[in-house]
């Protein structure tokens, strides 16, 4: 197991940071989060053309750069730190991973190149209004009617579901339950019987949608009825990517809290000179570094095809969720009243922390998965 980043990886991180410092200041975050689509297509184009980020973990034969989960997670950590508004998690993490895990080689050859180049933005629609984050929560059905599959049901909490140009949908064969009978389908955004509605998300930097399917045509990806394992692998990697995004955000909040505590004066001294504040900051550092250890370890484990991946993914997700929420609440607290205002940037991360806490399953859900998947 690798416990440090290579020089090349550090350089890669530095390049991304430079890009984000310039392109994603919080003034931009605020501008974009107020738009319906939530991102700037010019920035997305630069991100793809100059940095090749949507291609990062896609194999070279499909137009990607052939890096792996560790590099993907470096990108995620920096996006989390800068709160970049872009459909990256939807397209490059969720949809790309689902296609890589669940589609045939021929389908991958068709679908992945435009995603890698950033020309096509995809998303994965698997959660439903029941809010469950596993395969067994899928109720949307795919019926075979004269050689075509027709999908009926509702997906919810679909990331960038309204703006995505390609939908990868998880559906089940009627009459099946649990992890049986699940398949991936690709659905075009203008498909018949598809209604896409934006949901009002607390974290305005993450656009969520509800998609209603009524006999909507879908094209099967991979083998019929065998998507459960691929979906589960996809969700493990997604949880790891999210954990890395969260530790980046938590670090940004910690930095902000510490620098404010060093500057803000009350009672004739900096508030950071009060032990109450100092200890809070030290505890935050411990929590953030622990969460980083978990997130980095899990990313490396994904790169190594570790058989313990589901447990490690859950460990990282649970740990990072708690660390992010605690850091966010503490960062507001240390800022005092100003930290509760709209003008102050802290709430942007606080809301991201809140939505990330439950996205892909909350910490108690993942702690339970850890217990189920880990040999004690």
């Amino acid at each position: 197991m690798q416990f440090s980043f290579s020089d090349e990886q550090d350089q890669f991180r530095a390049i991304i940071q430079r890009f984000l410092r310039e392109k994603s200041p919080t003034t931009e975050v605020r501008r974009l989060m107020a738009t319906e689509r939530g991102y700037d297509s010019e920035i997305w184009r630069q991100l793809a053309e100059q940095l090749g980020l949507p291609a990062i973990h896609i194999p070279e034969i499909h137009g990607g750069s052939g890096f792996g989960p560790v590099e993907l997670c470096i990108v995620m950590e920096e996006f989390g730190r800068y709160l970049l508004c872009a459909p990256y998690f939807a397209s490059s993490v969720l949809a790309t991973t689902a296609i890589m895990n669940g589609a045939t080689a021929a389908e991958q050859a068709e679908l992945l190149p435009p995603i890698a180049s950033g020309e096509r933005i995809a998303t994965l629609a698997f959660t439903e209004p029941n809010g469950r984050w596993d395969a067994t929560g899928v109720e949307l059905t795919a019926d075979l009617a004269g050689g075509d599959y027709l999908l009926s049901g509702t997906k919810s909490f679909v990331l960038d579901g309204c703006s995505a140009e390609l939908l990868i949908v998880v559906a089940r064969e009627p009459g099946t339950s649990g992890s049986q009978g699940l398949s991936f389908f690709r659905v075009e955004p203008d498909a018949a019987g598809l209604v896409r509605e934006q949901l009002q998300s607390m974290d305005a930097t993450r656009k969520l949608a509800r998609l209603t399917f009524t006999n909507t045509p879908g094209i099967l990806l991979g083998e019929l009825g065998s998507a459960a394992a691929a979906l589960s692998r996809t969700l493990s990697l997604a949880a790891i990517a999210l954990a890395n995004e969260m530790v980046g955000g938590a670090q940004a909040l910690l930095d902000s809290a510490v620098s404010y505590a060093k500057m803000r004066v009350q009672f004739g001294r900096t508030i950071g000179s009060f032990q109450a504040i100092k200890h809070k900051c030290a505890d935050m550092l411990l929590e953030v570094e622990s969460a980083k250890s978990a997130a980095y370890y899990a990313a490396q484990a994904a790169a190594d095809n570790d058989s313990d991946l589901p447990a490690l993914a859950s460990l990282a997700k649970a740990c990072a969720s708690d660390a992010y929420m605690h850091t966010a609440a503490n960062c507001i607290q240390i800022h005092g009243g100003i930290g509760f205002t709209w003008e102050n940037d802290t709430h942007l991360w606080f809301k991201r922390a809140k939505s990330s806490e439950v996205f892909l399953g909350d910490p108690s859900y993942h702690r339970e998965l850890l217990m189920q998947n880990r040999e004690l």
Partner: protein
Amino acid sequence: MAESNNMSNYDEASLRAEVTAWLAANWDPQLSLIDWRTRLTESGWAMPQWPAQWYGKGVSAQLAAVVAEEFAAVNALGVASGGPGRLAAVTILEHGSDAQKAQYLQRILTGEDAWCQLFSEPGSGSDLAGSTTRADFDGSQWLINGQKVWTTSAHHATYGLLVARTDWDVPKHQGLSYFVLDMQQPGVEVHQLRQMNGHASFNEVFFTDARIAADQVLSNVGNGWQVALTTLAHERRLADVLRATAARSKLEGPIYEEERAETAIVMEPYQWYPQRAGRVDLVGARAKSTGAINDPAIRQEIAKLLIMSQTAEWTARRARAAQEHGRPQGPEGSLGKLASSNVARAASHVHTLISGADAMLTGSDSPLDGIIAEILVSVPAISIAGGTDEIQRNIIAERVLGMAKEPRADTGPFRDVPKNTV
């Protein structure tokens, strides 16, 4: 002006008889709110605990409760009670000159004038006495320059209670003075401040050569901190006001509608306050309706929350009971604020667990038409507003447990005390 009875003239029975008779003769729901309250203040039944020459009867708290009972029995309305006006009234009553009392008190009680409290500044929050808004006497009047923040209701206030620095060469508490400021003048600029939960309950108030006449200092120049302590000691529980008006919410008639309209304006900035306390009351129904009640992990968290909020409630009851029986309050009296922060945070956590993926939504897409989202983004305020958790812990440790204070860095002349540069 009211007949000048004093405390010794009443026992419970005679007081009850007199107030009942007065109400029978004078309570008239057909009057306008202001007319009724004018009649009420002049009778002395408006503020029974206050001295007879200032709209009261000079009776004890216990007897004042009897008056309140009789008012409630006939649904008679009291004086304007919500918002900072009440704070202004008690402060002026205690520290004002007779001329100031005559100028301000009645119109506060009738609700004709609205007030705001100009204490906190960008540079001084926890350290309220570190105020750097300056008041300079130009020979005939005071000129005010500086900035206040978190000022609730400043945007419709007629007057403000202002703490400003009049002497920079003495230790910080000694250089403050307390003024009545006319808010409706060119040197006063009010900007609404938006919070992270989307509401705009507060204002920033900027002073550029704002003017205050020489006779508008409360108490003496340099005694502002003592006066401010009176105001702070009376910061009333909003919940009481809300409860009182809620109790009359079904009553019909123009005077009640007038009162409801007044309350709606005064209470508008506080709409989200129940949410910042975590809404423990919603947990049971939410857990049942979502099925989360069957999840063993969530059950544990709900149980922890219930223990926390029940014990906080009982601790507060113990404090109140001690007070009512005239016994000295024990340590329990200082713990409520800190306990309420813990309860609110735990409640926010439990609402997140119960709501699951729905916790990502806001507005009408969020459960209970947005209330759940509002809880999640409002709870961070409770551990800051009205004195932060850290300050509460200091107070508890130092005043209740008698632990030594940290060495101070702000005891010399205020001019030399390190301050915020921005």
